[in-house]
């Protein structure tokens, strides 16, 4: 049976407020563990403030062909939230105005937005330096109309970043759904065939590893070596880099942690692995996240927790660089996920 989104199931954790309560109660309320705010304060790192805006990360919709067990977006086929062309145009205007070098498209499966290709084409025309598409891979093989995506990506020199929790079928399907591993392998071969991920190719193909369970990712460089070896020897697949990303305790992953009675241990692990050096480079300091309906957030996780930017400007249509640069970043205990160990961001480790 295919999993449904928390929202479709009317699960209490589909409510962002309830998630924030969970993250502030229990071990954090009892002061058994320090809140993220007090942790930053003791190190004189509070409040967190943005640096120069470099990346505009746009969530073009929560619709997805997959229903991954750990998804922080609670995405799935039953989610209908989709960005309009008008909002996309506002995003393009902002990227031109600010000179942010990267447009990072995420979802859901961003390719399922009917204006996705138009958006990429327009972004290329206005000269965005780097366009990232966070592709779940299986979308490429899901339907005939998506089969030419590798060619489309190539035409626009899109940087493809794809999820791959393990090089074995069992562990991948356990997290991402039955059949996902084989479909992903097929899609990776299609990307390799047009030049993506090949040594010295400027068609960048990176993979994202996030743990399939209640544990933190290990050393990124060591995992990259293992992934490369296994994917090359078993499937003749090449890719450039592996980004390891920590699962943040929100949405479906939070639901899993609580249901499997791993929540407390996981939070202990995150707090214990807190690395002050990672704080300086957390992605919320150089990224702004835009939701499908144009609201602004410090990161995609805050978007899912409905923590809008703490600024008089909260929507892309009212964008003001100066005003937004003066804001302080909204935090809660989920932020420990980005500061654990070597740190975690949409570009992998940060230390």
């Amino acid at each position, binding site marked *: 049976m295919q999993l449904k989104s928390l929202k479709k199931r009317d699960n209490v954790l589909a409510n962002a407020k309830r998630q924030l309560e969970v993250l502030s109660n229990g071990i954090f309320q009892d002061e058994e563990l320090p809140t993220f705010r007090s942790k930053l304060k003791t190190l004189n790192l509070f409040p967190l403030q943005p640096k120069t805006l470099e990346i505009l990360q746009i969530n073009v919709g929560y619709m997805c062909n997959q229903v991954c067990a750990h998804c922080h977006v609670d995405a799935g086929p039953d989610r209908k939230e989709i960005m309009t062309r008008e909002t996309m145009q506002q995003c393009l205007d902002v990227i031109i105005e600010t000179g942010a070098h990267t447009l990072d498209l995420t979802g859901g499966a961003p390719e399922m937005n009917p204006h996705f290709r138009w958006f990429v084409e327009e972004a290329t025309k206005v000269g965005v330096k780097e366009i990232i598409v966070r592709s779940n891979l299986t979308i490429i093989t899901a339907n005939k109309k998506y089969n030419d995506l590798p060619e489309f990506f190539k035409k626009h020199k899109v940087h493809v970043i794809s999820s791959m929790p*393990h*090089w*074995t079928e069992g*562990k991948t399907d356990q997290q991402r759904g039955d059949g996902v591993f084989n479909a992903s392998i097929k899609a990776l071969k299609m990307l390799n065939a047009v030049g993506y991920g090949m040594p010295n190719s400027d068609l960048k193909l990176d993979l994202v*590893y996030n*743990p399939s*369970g209640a*544990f*933190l*990712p*290990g*050393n990124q460089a*060591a*995992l990259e070596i*293992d*992934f490369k070896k296994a994917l090359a020897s078993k499937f003749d697949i090449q890719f450039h880099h592996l980004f390891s990303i920590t699962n943040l305790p929100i949405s479906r992953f939070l639901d899993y942690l609580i249901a499997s009675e791993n929540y407390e*241990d996981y939070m*202990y692990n995150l707090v*214990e692995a807190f690395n002050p050096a990672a704080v300086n480079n957390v992605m919320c300091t150089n990224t702004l996240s835009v939701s499908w309906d144009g609201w602004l957030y410090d990161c995609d996780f805050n978007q899912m927790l409905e923590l809008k930017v703490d600024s008089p400007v909260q929507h892309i249509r009212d964008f003001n660089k100066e005003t937004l640069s003066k804001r302080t970043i909204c935090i809660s205990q989920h932020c420990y996920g980005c500061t654990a160990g070597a740190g975690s961001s949409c570009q992998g480790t940060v230390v």
Partner: protein
Amino acid sequence: MSNTYYEPSDLRKFGTITEWSEELGKKFFDYYGSVFEEGALSAREKSLIALAVSHVVKCPYCIDAYTQDGLKRGITKEEMMEAVHAGAAIESGATLVHSVQMMNKYKKLSM
């Protein structure tokens, strides 16, 4: 609440052993840290050795810790189980090799 000699959450408190003997505790953790660094053996190999030994010395804390450590390193369940069997084989071998002593004694005492 059940009363047992082992409390899973005690693993988190491992570091507190330094409170009652700071010098020795610190020396132990420094040593421990150095042992598991990348060396002639990879940290991954050492993690599997630690998992096997955890079973042999029957330390539930160590089993929890090194199962989690293996998962973090992308070690598969097949690799973990093979490591446990390597430990188990040595442990049963250690028992069985004593049977040579039994056989020797038997022979010595028998006409």
